[in-house]
């Protein structure tokens, strides 16, 4: 068994997620943008928990920080914790129905947003509000399609 089989599929999905994170959309749509990087991270941690873990999540986070122009470590911090929680839930997630999975995803993405917000509040004066819930909601709604798509690619390319 080649342990690096299909690694590129994970990488490509991650790059596509990064691209979708910065694609230019009308201003009103920005509030509804799903957290693409968090979504694909959750999928890979659940599907390949022995392969994708908090270390990979941390690297994803650093890459996202550089792309977005925020201080290094903001998203790295949040994604590491999200990956740890997703790992703890990975066996149960596989047995849940789609809607149940979406609820968990909503919580995880909401957690990601809150953690990012907390880290940013350490150095900047931030306004409050529940706006972070909107991306979490949209992410949870599109989760089933994201999951099915990535699962399809995982099976087709035998990613292990």
């Amino acid at each position, binding site marked *: 068994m080649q342990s690096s089989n299909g690694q590129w599929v994970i990488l490509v999905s991650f790059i596509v997620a990064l691209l979708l994170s910065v694609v230019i959309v009308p*201003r009103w749509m920005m509030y509804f943008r799903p957290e693409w990087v968090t979504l694909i991270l959750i999928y890979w941690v659940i599907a390949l928990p022995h392969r994708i873990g908090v270390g990979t999540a941390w690297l994803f986070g650093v890459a996202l920080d550089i792309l977005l*122009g925020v201080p290094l470590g903001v998203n790295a*911090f949040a994604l590491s914790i999200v990956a740890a929680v997703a790992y703890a839930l990975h066996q149960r997630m596989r047995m849940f129905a789609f809607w149940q999975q979406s609820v968990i995803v909503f919580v995880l993405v909401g957690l990601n947003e809150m953690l990012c917000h907390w880290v940013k509040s350490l150095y900047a*004066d931030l*306004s409050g509000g529940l706006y972070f819930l909107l991306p979490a909601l949209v992410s949870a709604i599109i989760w089933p399609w994201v999951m099915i798509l990535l699962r399809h690619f995982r099976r087709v390319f035998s990613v292990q």
Partner: protein
Amino acid sequence: MKGPSVVARTIGLCVLSLVLVFADYRTGVLTPLRSTLSAVAVPFYWLVDTPERFVNWSADTLINRRDLLADNEALRSEAIVLRAKMQRLSVLEAENSRLRELLNSSEIVSDDVLVAELIGVSPDPAIHTIVLNRGSSDGVYVGQAVLDAHGLMGQVTAISSSSSRVLLITDATHAMPVQINRNGVRAILEGVGRLDQLELRHVPATMDIQVGDILVSSGLGRRFPVGYPVATIVSVSRDPGQAFAMIKASPSAHLDRSRHVLLVFDSIVRSHDAEL
């Protein structure tokens, strides 16, 4: 996962992340690393910009000859009008120089500009930053002023070799010193996180300020060069019970529409006016 437990690893990485955040925000230690790594981000923004660029390219390439000639003619007329205004401008500049000399102030040297193109915007609607396709290899520096054809847009906050990130004046964390064009009265203009609105805070109710007044950069912060239009006052409300007036202004620059911007190389020699 083999090795140290998940919890231990997570805690370790979290602590590392917080240390990085502190290092990046408080000290300049990570700036060279950021700068190098940001260069990798440029292809992402470039790729994401492709649809828009393609649309612009098609519009330019697939235009018919008649429209092209009409555009040409319109641009030629505009160029002649602008050149005529430039002649007047150089006369005014010379006169200004002579008057400043009379007042024993030092000379103002005019600014060089560099054209840049917007390749990305911050995906977070609460943060107003844009990414330009010019970087340190073009001479761009942190703190450099950016403007479009209509007014000041913001300042450069981070650079890599071929791109730079600009904080717009409408960002909630941005404030700049301005003065009213009409009477020279000075104030601080702050962003409130809205693209169409800025606020003048802590302005006494007795200050001479009206709707329609144009605000220009006063140069006092040593960040933005003097004399560029920034905003126009849209409302002044003086509540008798309050010590300060509530003043709202609308930015002059087309912050959500401009694709081409100018980076200003500030070579102004600050003067100490006799009036001050």
